[in-house]
């Protein structure tokens, strides 16, 4: 049983006395390995590194100092808080726009409901589109996307973006019923139609 690599290293470095490894005296391959290790340690140790100019060390320190000073000084473009202040309202506004466009688009593009009995019409008039609680919207991929995009918005960000609470114009737009949306569509088409003047 020959000596392990770790034992050979310890013996070559002299951190372990040869007397503690009786095997070494009777094993030529292990003795040769220890000798080879010592020879290579000696060969490697003889390789010097050319010493740089004595002036070099201060230049190195100065370069590090300059870079560190640059990094230590505040840089507005790296100020995370500043970016957050700028981007969060913009992001919230973008999400709000998407919500409005998708909500309007899905309602405007929907086919008109079939004629219904007067009683049913009255009931439908009372039905209001609630984007947040409308169970039917769960099946709408576009609304699912909007919901996931807006999931991370907190009230403060939404407020900054103009997403106000009930009673606001934005709330009214996103809660129109079908008749209101049809009327809005008519008015938009009228406005967008080429002028006869």
């Amino acid at each position, binding site marked *: 049983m020959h000596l392990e*690599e770790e034992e050979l290293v310890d013996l070559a470095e002299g951190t372990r006395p040869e007397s503690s490894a009786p095997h070494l005296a009777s094993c030529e391959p292990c003795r040769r390995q220890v000798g080879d290790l010592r020879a290579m340690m000696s060969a490697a140790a003889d390789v010097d590194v050319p010493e740089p100019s004595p002036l070099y060390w201060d230049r190195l320190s100065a370069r590090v100092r300059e870079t560190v000073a640059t*990094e230590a000084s505040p840089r507005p473009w790296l100020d995370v808080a500043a970016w957050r202040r700028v981007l969060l309202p913009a992001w919230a506004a973008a999400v709000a726009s998407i919500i409005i466009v998708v909500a309007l688009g899905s309602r405007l593009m929907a086919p008109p409901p079939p004629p219904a009995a007067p009683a049913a019409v009255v009931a439908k008039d009372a039905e209001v589109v609630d984007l947040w609680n409308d169970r039917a919207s769960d099946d709408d991929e576009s609304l699912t996307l909007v919901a996931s995009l807006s999931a991370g918005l907190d009230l403060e960000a939404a407020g900054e973006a103009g997403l106000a609470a009930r009673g606001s114009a934005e709330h009214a737009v996103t809660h129109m019923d079908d008749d209101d949306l049809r009327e809005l569509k008519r008015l938009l088409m009228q406005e967008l139609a080429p002028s006869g003047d």
Partner: protein
Amino acid sequence: MAAADQSLADLDERALVDACLANQPGAFDLIVERHRRPVYLLCYRFVGNHEDASDLSQDVFIRAFRGLRSFRGQSSIATWLYRIGVNVCLNRVSAKTTLGKLTDPIDDRQFVDAGAESAPDRILKEERAAQVRAAIAQLPPTQRATLILRTYHEMSHQEIADVLGSSVGAVKANFFHALANLKKLLRDEI
């Protein structure tokens, strides 16, 4: 200012790092001044030329500055800097093959001050050193790092294990294989 420098010099390593984090003038300068030479030598051993070693040394200290908050004081600043240095050097040598530039040309060194040595002896010694440097440069990265830290920086196996994030047994095995491979590479040359 001199009094401030004196007080910084009296700080233990943890307190010196805290002084850096508190933006105390001169604190990080002191760390650089104390460790710049061994860091440079470590880098030079890896890349074998002054320009790259200088760039890497600067990189080591910049990374150390950025990572000051991560210094826990569980190891010495020297060990921490060596760890950064080894990572920086291993990234560099794995990013590009530097073998062609690993050793400053022997011809460039024939004309340096020979001191007490005769010119032929000096040339022979430089040729042999260049062969060993080239052989070390061909070692696998972890073996090379182990050999450099053990041979030139006189670090204990435990300290090397701390730097490389391995065990003492693994360090000794790496050192054994580094020396064995060195012998194979130099077989026809020494």
